């Protein structure tokens, strides 16, 4: 133990600066004031009035004199104070001062008061319940409030110019532009709006933003913006369950199958047509007249719905136009066929198509009529996701309640290993996994019954987060591992905050007694380390204490030493509490003298 460390480490409760001043100043004056008559007014506050000094005054030469303006100010303050009602806190201060002996009286820096009320108020003022210094004046803004009129913003000319600039009449060109953009109805509404709102009101009641933080967009509020808009509360209602009768079910199923069959038949017919077209294209006639490529035909065969995209539609009146009917330039531009060419092409295609049909139905090919697998999969509840898998499709979520329930399983703890600790400690699994736990002591205990001894293992376990939280748990069980697990859970549940001075040692010196064990703890300076018994070392490590000295002068029983140390940690004195209790200002001298450096 060195001298310097003690000086650094001790926290002194300093008097309020006012009290310190009192103590170091002259002490005679208060005594005489106390002895004077009740309406005694000291000469320093009333220099204009001649007051005959009493005997004591003559006996003690007064050193201090005060200038007139200060005294006047003080007098005014005094009057203000005496007008107020006094508070009940620290009530007997004035009375006590009257009792004060010669040596103990205090010289106050403020002018002496003529009434006990004023002194009571002054006494109440120097005993605040908080530890920080109170602010004497109400806080004012750092910046002077500049009015618009001072800036010249309310001048008639300025206003007029501003109005013309920002809210001027719409010019005919601007109106034209607006008409191009908006429908006549919208224009009407716009103009009505312009007319309805006075531009004066826009200037004085509205706010036209030109600051740098103004929004850079013009919003029609058609789209929700999560930055500004409150999310509307979605009203989700579960769908009414539909329980069809057997008849209805059969009908729905029949309709579904018929639709699928129709679709597949249509597709098949389309495919056969396409095959016919492909064959025609390979002939001489097709080469000249058809502009569909092989690739396009392949695409269409794969997905017959593409036909609509590739094949030109008929004109609006339903009549196909041929080059013969149109003038030649237009025909060339369109690449249209002559009537003769078209007829030949159609004939060719029809002939090929006929053959395809014959092929198709010549053999018994149900395969062609069967609905495609894709169509069936689409119909399944999960949709196309399961089209390529072999597993049974899911029955699906119930619409309306989907996503509203969370599964019981914790993603951090799929095995449910920490389930028990989660329940006992109320902490998330990740926090539990980070906790430092250790078995501190184990002993075998036995319960003597008439059937014999029932032996059990009693285990004490610590849990700490390394940053000021520590818990100990104790459990007994026939199986030591079970006892350990239970004690661990209890330790986590019992974790309590431990106050640490500068996050490295304890506050002051603490002694705690538990049964025959006494734990004496001493706070130590930075870098001292842990000079403590082994179990207590583990506890210090778990709670994050680096500098400490502990003695166990009496019994060193494992269980009780752990418990006594834990008790001592919880019984540390709290400087803040002490300061509040005594109504004193508290200063950590270490932080004052070493420039706030606590390293």
């Amino acid at each position, binding site marked *: 133990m060195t001298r310097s460390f*003690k000086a650094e480490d001790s926290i002194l409760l300093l008097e309020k600066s006012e009290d310190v001043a009192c103590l170091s100043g002259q002490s005679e004056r208060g005594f005489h004031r106390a002895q004077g008559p009740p309406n005694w007014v000291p000469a320093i506050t009333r220099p204009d009035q001649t007051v005959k000094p009493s005997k004591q005054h003559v006996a003690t030469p007064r050193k201090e004199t005060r200038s007139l303006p200060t005294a006047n100010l003080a007098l005014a303050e005094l009057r203000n104070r005496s007008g107020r009602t006094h508070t009940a806190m620290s009530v*007997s*201060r004035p009375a006590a001062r*009257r009792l004060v002996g010669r040596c103990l009286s205090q010289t106050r820096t403020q002018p002496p008061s003529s009434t006990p009320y004023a002194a009571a108020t002054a006494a109440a003022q120097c*005993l605040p319940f908080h530890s920080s210094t109170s602010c004497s004046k109400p806080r004012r803004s750092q910046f002077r409030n500049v009015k618009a009129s001072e800036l010249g913003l309310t001048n008639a000319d300025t206003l007029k110019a501003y109005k013309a600039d920002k809210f001027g009449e719409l010019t005919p060109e601007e109106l034209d532009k607006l008409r191009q953009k908006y429908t006549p109805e919208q224009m009407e509404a716009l103009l009505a709006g312009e007319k309805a709102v006075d531009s004066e009101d826009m200037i004085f009641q509205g706010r036209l933003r030109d600051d740098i933080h103004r929004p850079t967009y013009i919003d029609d509020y058609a789209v929700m913006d999560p930055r500004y808009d409150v999310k509307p509360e979605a009203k989700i209602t579960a769908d009414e369950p539909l329980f069809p009768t057997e008849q209805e079910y059969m009908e729905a199923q029949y309709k579904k199958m018929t639709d699928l069959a129709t679709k597949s038949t249509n597709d098949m017919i389309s495919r056969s047509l396409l095959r016919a077209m492909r064959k025609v294209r390979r002939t001489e006639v097709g080469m000249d007249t058809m502009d569909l490529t092989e690739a396009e035909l392949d695409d269409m065969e794969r997905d017959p719905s593409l036909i609509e995209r590739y094949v030109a539609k008929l004109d609006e009146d339903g009549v196909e136009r041929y080059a013969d009917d149109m003038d030649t330039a237009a025909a060339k531009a369109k690449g249209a066929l002559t009537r003769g060419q078209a007829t030949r092409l159609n004939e060719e295609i029809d002939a090929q198509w006929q053959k395809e049909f014959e092929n198709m139905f010549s053999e018994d090919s149900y395969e062609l009529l069967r609905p495609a697998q894709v169509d069936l999969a689409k119909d399944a509840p999960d949709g196309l996701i399961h089209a390529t898998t072999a597993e049974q499709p899911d029955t699906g979520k119930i619409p309306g309640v989907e996503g509203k329930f969370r599964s019981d399983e914790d993603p951090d703890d799929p095995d449910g290993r920490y389930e028990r600790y989660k329940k006992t400690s109320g902490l998330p699994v990740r926090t539990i996994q980070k906790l430092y736990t250790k078995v501190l002591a184990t002993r075998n205990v036995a319960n003597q019954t008439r059937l014999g001894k029932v032996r059990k293992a009693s285990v004490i376990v610590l849990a700490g987060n390394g940053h000021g939280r520590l818990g100990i748990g104790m459990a007994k069980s026939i199986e030591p591992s079970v006892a350990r697990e239970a004690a661990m859970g209890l330790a986590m549940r019992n974790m309590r905050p431990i106050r640490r001075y500068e996050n490295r040692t304890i506050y002051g010196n603490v002694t705690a007694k538990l049964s025959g064990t006494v734990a004496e703890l001493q706070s130590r300076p930075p870098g001292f380390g842990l000079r403590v018994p082994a179990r207590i070392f583990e506890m210090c490590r778990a709670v994050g204490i680096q500098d400490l000295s502990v003695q166990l002068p009496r019994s060193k029983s494992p269980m009780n030493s752990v418990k006594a140390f834990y008790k001592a940690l919880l019984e540390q004195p709290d400087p803040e509490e002490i300061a509040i209790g*005594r109504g004193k200002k508290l200063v950590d001298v270490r932080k004052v003298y070493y420039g706030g450096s606590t390293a």
Partner: protein
Amino acid sequence: MPSVQTISNMCSHLQNVSKARLAITSVPNNKFNLNLALALHRSGFLSHVYRAGPKPPTLEQMITQEPEKVTTANVAQMRLWLGMKYWDGKPVLSQATPISKPSRLMTVNIAELGKLTRGLSAHLKGGVVPGLNLGECLYVATSQGVLESREALARKLGGLLLCRTN
């Protein structure tokens, strides 16, 4: 010098009173008790100190009325009425331990008092006095009255060690 035995008695009494959670108590009226009570009041351990007769004064009385004049007729009746403080369910003054006793008066000089106040133990003529712990106060009877150790240090005064409170 009055006997320091009165200080010991007062310490024991204050400890008992704080354990019983009483709001007001009285100690015999003598100079030593008065000076110590005022020093405790300055440190914030007591809420008020008032000299009155055998009946406890009311709060209003203590605020507004001046204490009764002590005369030879009533001096034997007078007692010091002390207001006890409690915060957060705990007494503000929970321990008061006398240091000197009539058969062993322990005095400190300024250097030793400085050591004690900084938390170091001091070897005095009467024995070893452990240093102050966090929140502890030590009261010294000096030539300028009973002072708390920090007050005494500020005035550079040593004296007779009376008691320590916590």
